[in-house]
């Protein structure tokens, strides 16, 4: 289904996309920080909560797509970007990602190697909070997979400094990040953000494919509920297959 819609989009079929408020909030936050002359901060969550090579890896990959956008915005708006990461396996990747975007945007003279830092695993949250306070950040963006201490402590400290907070996280972190953030990528908005940011046919096609899978899932659930109520377990048995 995803492949089919990617092909349709690539062949020029136009699809309407709903605007995601958190994408606009990212730009608002970066603009605000640039005007205040304060840095923008990005992080991806505690390294013990997820790994790039486990089932939570796609959260980190989706988070990197947003970092891509944040870095491009920072170079255009001349805001300083501080990237603090906890995953050792992500460090070389993030370093390269940020440097590539600074080069691509013609801002290599403003690229500071020290602004991309690897935080110690055990003291990730507290080291991060210290860095945020010392640098007096104006905007905090966290997109990835978050644990209890990251989803509560880090955005709370950012709010205390007076930073604009934008979060994107897994489902169980959403109730917490909503309390502490100015704007949140709710559920699959986190993955759909790439399509709105890039306006690229592959991302749009994949997004529309996902929407159709969701529709099919909803219809299956509805049909399953009706059939089970009527005493027919055909669909239920099919899922056990």
């Amino acid at each position: 289904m995803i492949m089919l819609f990617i092909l349709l989009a690539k062949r020029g079929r136009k699809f309407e996309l709903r605007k995601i408020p958190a994408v606009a909030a990212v730009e608002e936050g970066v603009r605000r920080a640039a005007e205040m002359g304060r840095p923008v901060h990005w992080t991806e969550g505690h390294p013990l909560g997820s790994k790039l090579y486990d089932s939570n890896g796609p959260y980190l990959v989706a988070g990197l797509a947003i970092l891509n956008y944040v870095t491009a915005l920072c170079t255009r708006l001349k805001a300083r970007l501080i990237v603090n990461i906890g995953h050792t396996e992500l460090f070389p990747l993030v370093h390269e990602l940020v440097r590539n975007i600074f080069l691509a945007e013609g801002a290599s003279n403003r690229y500071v190697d020290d602004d991309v830092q690897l935080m110690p695993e055990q003291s990730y949250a507290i080291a991060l909070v210290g860095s945020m306070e010392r640098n007096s950040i104006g905007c905090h963006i966290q997109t990835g997979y978050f644990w209890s201490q990251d989803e509560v402590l880090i955005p709370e400290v950012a709010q205390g400094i007076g930073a604009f907070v934008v979060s994107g996280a897994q489902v169980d972190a959403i109730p917490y990040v909503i309390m502490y953030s100015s704007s949140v990528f709710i559920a699959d908005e986190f993955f759909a953000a790439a399509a709105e940011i890039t306006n690229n046919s592959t991302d749009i096609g994949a997004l529309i494919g996902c929407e159709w899978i969701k529709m099919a899932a909803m219809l299956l659930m509805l049909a399953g509920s009706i059939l089970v109520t009527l005493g027919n377990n055909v669909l239920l048995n099919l899922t056990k297959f």
Partner: protein
Amino acid sequence: MSSILRQRVPLLIVLISGLSMLGEFFFNVTEVTSIAAQLRLLAVTVAATAMILAAVSVTMNNIHNIVRRTKGQWPYHLWCVVLLWAWIFLGLYSGPTSETYLWFFNNILAALYSSILGILLFSLFMGFYRAFRLRGTETGIMIACAFLVMLGSVTIGELMWGGFAPVSRWILAVPNAGAYRGLIIVMAIGLMAVAFKTIFGMDLSWMGILRSVTEGKKEEKA
């Protein structure tokens, strides 16, 4: 050559790894299972080796601050470097299971970690205070639900009215569980799409390649 090393090789590695994992999940072929197991082991080894990067990165950053004599901070940076390397050498010299190493770990690191978790309580209170201010219909519904769930979970609620507990259970089991499952399903579909795009090299943003952004601009112009 540079583009091959920087783009093609990583994409090929991702494609082979992704297809091996998918193959292992869907087909019971011994060769594929063995390749997937080896790749998983390799990933853990690469991540463990990258810990050296962490030590070097932390040291370099702190040394910069020590050399610059950052006002009011450099002694802490110095202390951080001393502790980091003392810890590493202690581990290398006496082994990570030695009594001395474990004493430091249990009495310093574990205690500090517990203190960090203790701070969370205050952060939670601040968050609740912000979230539970009546600003409109939506926050009103949330406050009412939270009030009912809280009263249903404490003894005083049951003393006030016996219906709080069933109402609380219903809120948790029906609207809350329904919304939560819906979110989990859409997140799983989104995860699937991201994995698909990454494995087949359709999304290069994780490599810092702005191909998608530039393509998007071209498409917009067209």
